[in-house]
Structures are given as C-alpha cells and as structure tokens.
C-alpha cells in the first residue's frame, strides 16, 4: 500500500503519531478529561489487540494511545474509533484535549471540574487556526494537581470564605491548618488577611463550628503557561472569576491569540510582545472582574 490521497487526508486530521519504528504509528484517542465508559474502554482494548500489540498507554493530557498500528490500517482504525463514539485527539496548532482533575468528587474540589471540562470540550475542542497549539487546563482547588499554570489558559477553583462571628469560638484550628498563614486569632475570633488568602477553603472544611462559610466560588485565571524546552508559569491575571464567564474569557483569549500571534508563537510570547496590560485590558474588560 502506498500513501494515497485518502490516507494523507486522514493523517492531516491529526491523532496519528509517527513512531520511530518504520511504518508504525501510535493512535491517539481523545478522552474528555480522562473519562471513558467501561464499554468504550473494552472496545479500545479490542482495537489494541486487533490493530496494535495488545496494550494501550495513557498520555499526559489524559488521552489514550494505541501504539504499533501499521500505516496501512490507519483509516480503518479511525473509522472504528469514531464508531464507538470516541474521537481522535488532534495534534498541531489547535485546541488540545482539555485536562481537568477529579474535583467533582475530590473532597478538596471547589468547582465541578469534570462538568466544566465537558462543557469546554463541547464548545472548543478541537478549534484550529492558531499560530501554535492551545492548551486548556482545570484544577479544582489551589492544590493544583493538574497544573493549570502550564497551559495557555488555566483555571483553578477557589472559594472566598466568610466568618460568622457569632459561631466562631476562636479554637484556632483554621489558623493552624491555613498553609499561607492568612488567619490569626484575636480576642477569641478568627481574622482572615485577604492579601494572603489563596482561597483554598481549608478553613471552611476544618471549622468545627461551621463558622467559616463559602461566600462565593470562582476560579483563578492563568494565561500564557507552557512547558517544553522553554517553560513558563502562566500569568495570574484574576481571582474568583465566576465559572459562567470562563467560555467568554477563553473565546476572547483565542481571538487575541489568533489576531496578534505570529506563526509558531505560543500565547506566552504573543502576550509578551503585545504587553500583559494590553492583553488584560482586552480580555477582562467588560467582564467586571476584580
């Protein structure tokens, strides 16, 4: 078999990673934030036996790869992947699979990370047309397990605590567990320093009297993060942003990147060239954010 036009078109759609071994490809399957039904999982297993070498590997962005597929079978595998309700994961200059932690069920989770990932995947995956790749990451709390700061745009769940002074006994447990020492006890009352607070909600979780309550939830927004040979933490541009505003912020960021970015440039470099303040003005304006 030769590389005919159909095969070349299939390859261009993405999700086929050339192996260093001649004629073999690894098939990359997109799985939204690592969630796959057991039925689909069984079928992916079968595909790996039928076309690969009977094993699968998991990617850093929570996708699945079937290695050792011969190039003559690529179109066939793709059709089978689509038939079981999954999609190929793109490579190249487009939106990459969205990574989210298990915040929906994790005791520390402050937002519905899985629901958010699904919503953003529906809306934005795999939008093409960028100067380079575009990665979106979500962590449910400041524990930061999924490292949103290493994505072009990342979101981190937050909660702003509020004290009911009538219930506080000044036991000091919240001050003891606060990792950033934002709480002190004065006159048998807890006092929170908003400049130090990272909105993790430890005080709310631990308070024996339920004196600390959730005032509002939201997300911290990070932009321009990347890994690779030259890595950078994303700029921390906002706190406690309403989850409902996330799609709009992503869309504005994408538009900024598309219209200002030059070929092969990641968002981080575009922001630096245009200026962080200019970027913030364009993205956060009209959003009523902080």
């Amino acid at each position: 078999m030769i590389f005919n036009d159909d095969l070349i078109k299939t390859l261009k759609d993405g999700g086929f990673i050339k192996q260093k071994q001649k004629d073999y490809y690894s098939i990359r399957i997109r799985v939204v934030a690592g969630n796959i039904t057991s039925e689909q999982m069984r079928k992916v297993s079968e595909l790996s036996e039928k076309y690969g070498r009977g094993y699968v590997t998991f990617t850093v962005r929570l996708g699945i790869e079937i290695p050792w597929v011969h190039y003559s079978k690529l179109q066939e595998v793709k059709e089978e992947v689509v038939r079981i309700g999954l999609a190929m994961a793109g490579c190249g200059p487009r939106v990459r699979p969205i990574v989210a932690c298990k915040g929906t069920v994790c005791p520390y989770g402050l937002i519905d990370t899985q629901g958010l990932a699904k919503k953003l995947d529906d809306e934005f995956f795999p939008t093409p047309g960028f100067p380079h790749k575009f990665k979106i990451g979500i962590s449910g709390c400041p524990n930061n397990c999924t490292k949103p700061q290493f994505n072009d745009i990342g979101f981190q769940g937050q909660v702003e605590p509020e004290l009911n002074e009538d219930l506080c006994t000044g036991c000091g447990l919240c001050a003891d567990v606060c990792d950033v020492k934002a709480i002190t006890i004065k006159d048998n009352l807890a006092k929170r320093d908003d400049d130090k607070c990272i909105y993790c909600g430890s005080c709310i979780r631990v308070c024996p009297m339920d004196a600390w309550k959730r005032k509002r939830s939201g997300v911290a927004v990070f932009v321009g993060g990347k890994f690779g040979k030259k890595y950078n933490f994303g700029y921390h541009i906002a706190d406690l942003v309403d989850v409902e505003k996330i799609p709009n912020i992503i869309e504005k960021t994408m538009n900024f990147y598309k219209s200002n970015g030059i070929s092969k440039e990641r968002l981080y470099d575009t922001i630096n060239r245009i200026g962080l303040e200019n970027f913030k003005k364009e993205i956060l304006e009209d959003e009523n954010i902080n």
Partner: protein
Amino acid sequence: MKDIKADSFIDITDVVCPITFVKAKVAIEELEDGQILEVRMNEGEPIKNVPSSFKDEGHKILNVINNRDGTYTIFVKKGGLVNEV
C-alpha cells in the same frame, strides 16, 4: 467546654490517611447517638481531614484542643449535626 466527658477514646496517631478516618469511623460507630468520642490525632493531614469527614457524616465537633506536642484532641458527638436540625 472544658469539662466534656467522653464515652470512648481512640488514638489515631499511629496510622496515616486514609486509615486515620477509617479507624475513627469504626470507633464512633460503636457508640449510640448522642454519645461522645474523644480522638487524638497528629497535626497536618489528619487534623485537616478527620474533623471535616466527621462533619460530612453528620457528627458534631464539640471541641478541639491543640496539645502543643504535634497532636490534637477532638471531641465528637455522634449524630450531633443530624439530630439538632
């Protein structure tokens, strides 16, 4: 507050997460509603999670004492949150 009398005591300083709460949970299950369990635990991860897990399961934390030796003692009333509401 200072004179809370516990019906039972358990020390969970010898185990780590997730056994900490499992051990504490087994202890409170042996009590009747309204009875009080005294739990001694390490600072750090256990004090961050064990009291909140008790709350999640409907028990009321009556008091927390920092023993100033790297451990805490908490007093938990079984079903205290469920029955008060």
